């Protein structure tokens, strides 16, 4: 098992190195280069040359890359051009928001998707099955930002039940020791603040969770249906075991293997790519931060941010692989 995990971990190194080179070259290929982004309209050849020298952009690319990577391994991603603060600090400030949102979204998807997929798989062609199939299709076909608009319009504008913008009401001035707003409220004993932050999470999490919900429902349905027709289920039923025991021990346990994998992969995807949802709800996490950085050509942020998100993505995928080895012993021997 350890060997399996270590081997998978070692395979990551060349991928991440290659990725860092790709991102590095990509940023330097931005039209006009980083110096134009910095100077904007006021750019003159002399000033551009000054900026290039200040940021070390006049040195050969491989030298720039070596010194950049030397700093990155120490956790130094440079300084953001927009905010003039270290990129690592900016990421540390915003990533908790993204984690909070992604975990809420995946929790919503699991809570609704697994029971729905289970019922649909146990009773194929029933109304539950047909409704869940149609619903999953709709969930995949709606652009996530359009769903965001819809939720915002109905629940924030028309009904006024839930807030549609930001992470917390502006009137709340609780400390944020962890950056996870709901947790912060609980830790500092300010429960109204925690409740306020939780309410702010609902609409974006539902919007973000729809695609994972659709996928989890479909995979659960397919897995339950497949396992239900296995010989060992028939044997268990023939032995006279109660429906509940068969369902729990034989069907659910075996059907959960692919579902656990897809949950892990979707979590990785949500952690790294909530750009549209965060923009619609002005959520202030990594996604909207990256979108802003791309538009303002904030190259230290683009470089560091993509690298950071990709690392999160591949590490989560690695954890999924390893956990799969735990759940299904056959994987380890491959």
């Amino acid at each position, binding site marked *: 098992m350890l060997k399996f995990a270590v081997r998978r971990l070692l395979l990551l190194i060349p*991928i991440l190195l290659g*990725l860092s080179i790709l991102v590095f070259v990509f940023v330097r290929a931005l039209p006009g280069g980083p110096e134009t982004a910095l100077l904007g309209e006021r750019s003159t050849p002399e000033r551009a040359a000054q900026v290039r020298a200040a940021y070390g952009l006049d040195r050969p690319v491989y030298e720039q890359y070596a010194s950049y990577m030397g700093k990155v391994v120490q956790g130094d991603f440079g300084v953001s051009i927009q905010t003039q603060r270290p990129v690592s600090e900016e990421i540390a400030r915003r990533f908790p928001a993204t984690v909070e949102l992604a975990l809420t979204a995946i929790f919503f998807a699991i809570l609704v998707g697994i029971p729905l997929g289970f019922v649909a798989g146990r009773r194929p062609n029933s109304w539950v099955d047909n409704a869940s199939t149609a619903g999953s299709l709709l969930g995949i076909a709606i*652009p996530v*930002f*359009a769903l965001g608009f*819809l939720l915002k319009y109905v629940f924030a504008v028309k009904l006024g039940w839930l807030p549609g913008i930001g992470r917390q009401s502006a009137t709340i001035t609780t400390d944020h020791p962890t950056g996870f707003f709901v947790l912060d409220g609980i830790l500092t004993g300010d429960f109204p603040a925690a409740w306020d932050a939780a309410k702010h999470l609902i609409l974006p999490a539902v919007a973000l969770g729809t695609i994972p919900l659709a996928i989890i429902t479909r995979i659960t349905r397919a897995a339950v249906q497949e396992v239900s027709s296995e010989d060992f289920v028939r044997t268990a039923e023939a032995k006279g075991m109660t429906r509940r025991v068969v369902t729990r021990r034989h069907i659910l346990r075996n059907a959960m293997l692919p579902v656990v994998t897809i949950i892990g992969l979707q979590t990785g995807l949500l952690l790294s790519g909530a750009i549209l949802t965060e923009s619609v709800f002005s959520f202030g996490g990594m996604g909207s931060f990256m979108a802003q950085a791309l538009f303002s050509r904030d190259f230290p942020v683009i470089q560091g941010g993509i690298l950071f998100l*990709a690392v999160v993505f591949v590490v989560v995928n690695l954890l999924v692989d390893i956990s799969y080895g735990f759940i299904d012993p056959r994987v380890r021997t491959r």
Partner: protein
Amino acid sequence: MSINQLEAVETAVAHPEEAAGGLARDAVRRLLRSPTAIVGMVLIAIFVFVAVFAPVLAPYSPTDIDLTDLRPGVFPGPSAEHLLGLDQLGRDELSRIIYGARYSLLIGIVSLSMGALVGISLGLVAGAFGGWVDSVVMRLVDIMLAIPSLLLAIGIAALLGRSLTSVMIAIAVVNVPIFARLLRGSMLAQRQSDYALAARSLGVTRSRIVLRHVFPNSLAPVIVQGTLALATAIIEAAGLAYLGLGSPDPSVPEWGRMLAETNSFLASAPLLALWPGLAIVLSVMGFYLVGEALREALDPKLRR
């Protein structure tokens, strides 16, 4: 598209036992028997028809402005002259939706063909040569798959500047690793098959086996993915338009942009968000339904 879904597609069509002609004929027959596939094909047919005959079908030009009823903050709703009402600049909404089909179709087809062409070439090279060529190509593909696809598309579109072309290139680049990985996986499975062994024992050259036998038999999952890629292209283009990365010309009636623009007056004219939203959902559903039905139809395990 997650790696897991990719693998599902890869394994779905791993071992067609008969020649491509037989499987293809069989697949078409099964496709025509599936009600969801027929719904999907009807949706695609409507979409393509509207796109092709837009100038004939549209009652007005998508850029003509009718200022008679337009006042700030007032959005004339559906009427006899304008079936879906006027948009925020006094343009006929129905005509813009009809012309919008052209842009969605164009973005879908161009990005799919570019992405598939490069991806298939890479996959073919990797699958045909194996060894270090395979390792190099696949590591490159792994790197591309390590970047979340929307982030990659946004980065490329931002790098190339605001235009329809950069949207198409961005979506194409996202497609490249998916197609490369799929084809390569499928070819590896086919190379192990009995017919490849039989051909080799008959003395057929390696290049001929790969090009004439293995490659055509490996294409089934690629075809399925191609259909699904048209659906994701429409969704991704809409997302990029929302972020302001589409065409800079505001007169271009692109569904994603039309939908995104309604954000600022959603409360006063919710219908203007509904029409482009509906157009996107229905066209995406069409490609998705057909793609799913194709996957089942091309799966030899389900053949009778």
